[in-house]
């Protein structure tokens, strides 16, 4: 699993396109062997950051330390240790899936044989379809082929930008398993940029939330989602009485299947005590800091 040793460390990264600032002094650390979620609203700087990490864009300022080597961006030879899907996977439509991987293999420093190409085709569930022209592939098949290309040269870091785009529900489940397999079995670091927050919540060990070109929050997903303000769900034997107690405590509870309210983490024990002292029985209490709420709150700042 993950270690805390950063495989990628970014300091003071700045990039502007004319007067439009995409990254405004970004600091970020990605731990080795973890699934790292990269979140942020549109225009937060995620794509610019990914493009810097794969050498497509040169930053104006700042440093990127990758695999222990520091440069103004990612150094060219380091790209043999990074695989990626950027925005969406694109291929030569007139070539077959296998031929597309063969073409990609020729840009790598290590020798990649036909066997490896076929292994990757099988791994992503395209066995028997590799010989077909990519122009005939569905978006989901292209997405799978994109994963195959990203893994082809057995990179240490895999950057996946919206990898579940175009996949059907079973494809999404398979891909999630594959991403977890990349970390657990293959020992890879996966940087996962996604708009599907639940995806990051389910899979990521660490995450960073970008907004307006800055990292507004970074840490372990479990810690970030359970710190500070909590979203509490309370099931009682007398919801009306429970609601009354909570209102008296200055909270704003809502009632549906259970009582829901937001509360400070530290005050939760005294809230529970007040409810039980009022004679209301609690038979279930859940508290989570949901990622959607966290995302909205952090990006509205």
């Amino acid at each position, binding site marked *: 699993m993950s270690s805390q040793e950063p495989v990628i460390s970014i300091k003071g990264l700045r990039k502007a*396109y004319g007067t439009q600032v995409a990254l405004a002094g970004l600091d970020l650390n990605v731990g080795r062997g973890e699934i790292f979620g990269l979140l942020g609203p549109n225009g937060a700087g995620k794509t610019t950051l990914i*493009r810097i990490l*794969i*050498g*497509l*864009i*040169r930053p104006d300022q700042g440093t990127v330390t990758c695999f222990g080597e520091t440069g103004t961006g990612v150094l*060219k*030879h380091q*790209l*043999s240790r*990074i695989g*990626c899907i*950027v*925005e*969406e*996977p*694109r*291929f*030569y*439509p*007139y*070539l077959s899936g296998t*031929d597309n991987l*063969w*073409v*990609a293999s*020729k*840009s*790598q*420093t290590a020798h990649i044989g036909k066997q490896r190409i076929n292994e990757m085709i099988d791994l992503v569930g395209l066995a028997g379809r590799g010989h077909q022209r990519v122009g005939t592939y569905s978006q989901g098949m292209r997405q799978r082929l994109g994963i195959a*290309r990203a893994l082809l040269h057995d990179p240490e870091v895999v950057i996946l930008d919206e990898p579940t785009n175009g996949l059907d529900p079973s494809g999404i489940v398979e891909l999630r398993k594959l991403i977890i397999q990349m970390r657990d079995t293959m020992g890879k670091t996966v940087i996962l940029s996604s708009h599907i927050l639940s995806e990051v919540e389910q899979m990521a060990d660490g995450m960073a939330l970008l907004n307006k070109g800055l990292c507004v929050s970074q840490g372990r997903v479990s810690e970030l989602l359970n710190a500070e303000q909590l979203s509490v769900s309370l099931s009682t034997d007398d919801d009306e009485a429970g609601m009354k107690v909570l209102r008296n405590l200055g909270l704003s509870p809502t009632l549906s299947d259970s009582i829901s309210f937001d509360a400070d983490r530290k005050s939760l024990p005294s809230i529970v005590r007040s409810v039980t002292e009022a004679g209301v029985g609690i038979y279930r209490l859940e508290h989570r800091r949901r990622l959607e709420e966290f995302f909205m709150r952090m990006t509205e700042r």
Partner: protein
Amino acid sequence: MMGTFIAELYKVLTRPRSYIGIASIVALVVLIDTSFYFTGKQYIDLLFQNFDPVFRMSGQVVNGNLICFIILQTLIIQLPLLVALVTGDLISGEAAMGTLRYALATPVSRSRFIITKWATALSYVLCILLVLGVFAYLLSLVVFGPGDLLVLNADGLVVIRQDQLPWRFAAAFVYAFISLSAVASLSLMFSAFASNSIGPIVLTMVVIIVFTVISSFETGFFDPVMPFLFTNHMHLWRRLFSDPVPMGEILRSGAILVAHIAAFLGITLWHFNRKDIIE
């Protein structure tokens, strides 16, 4: 380097667009050969009617060498378009398809990427010329047979003996290769600046047309820039069919074309190494 070059070549050779030029050449050569097979004698009579009272021409005037020369003169004007159709798309086409970012997110340096593309462009030029050479020269010789070449140029009527022709045709093809390589390098340069396929192809043709039009002005106004217009040097292959051959002039023009190739490639490398890939 060889691996990426082979992959590039494979991409070009498996792309249907690449065969438009080759198919056009084959079709045009067959059409010209066919038309000369049936009406060649009338064409030659028309061409040389002014010499009729002075010269009497005997022997096989309409022969494979003459047809090949006519084909070269006809097609050499169209070839830049056929070349630019493929070479102008080599980088911008990848940007338009979205594959450029994947090609560059690899350990291949941008300079190596450009050099590979350039080598691929030149290979395509070579391929086009080989097809032209095989069809125009060999097919014409097979259909019409060998013979001395009668050339009507600025010096008047020149008769070149048959045994003098193979090296002249070979040199003409080498010169055409250099000329078309300049066109390929120009379109590749435009391709590095663009993110759509059509722009670089159209721009290359616009440059060739504008330069050619400027070259045709005889007002003297453009005289200072004339030596620097590469299009002025592209037709010098015809001088290989003069007698004597002005080798100094041909070599100087060839060197100017090579300098243009180097300049176009240099600009491409300079720009592409600084470019942010945001497509």
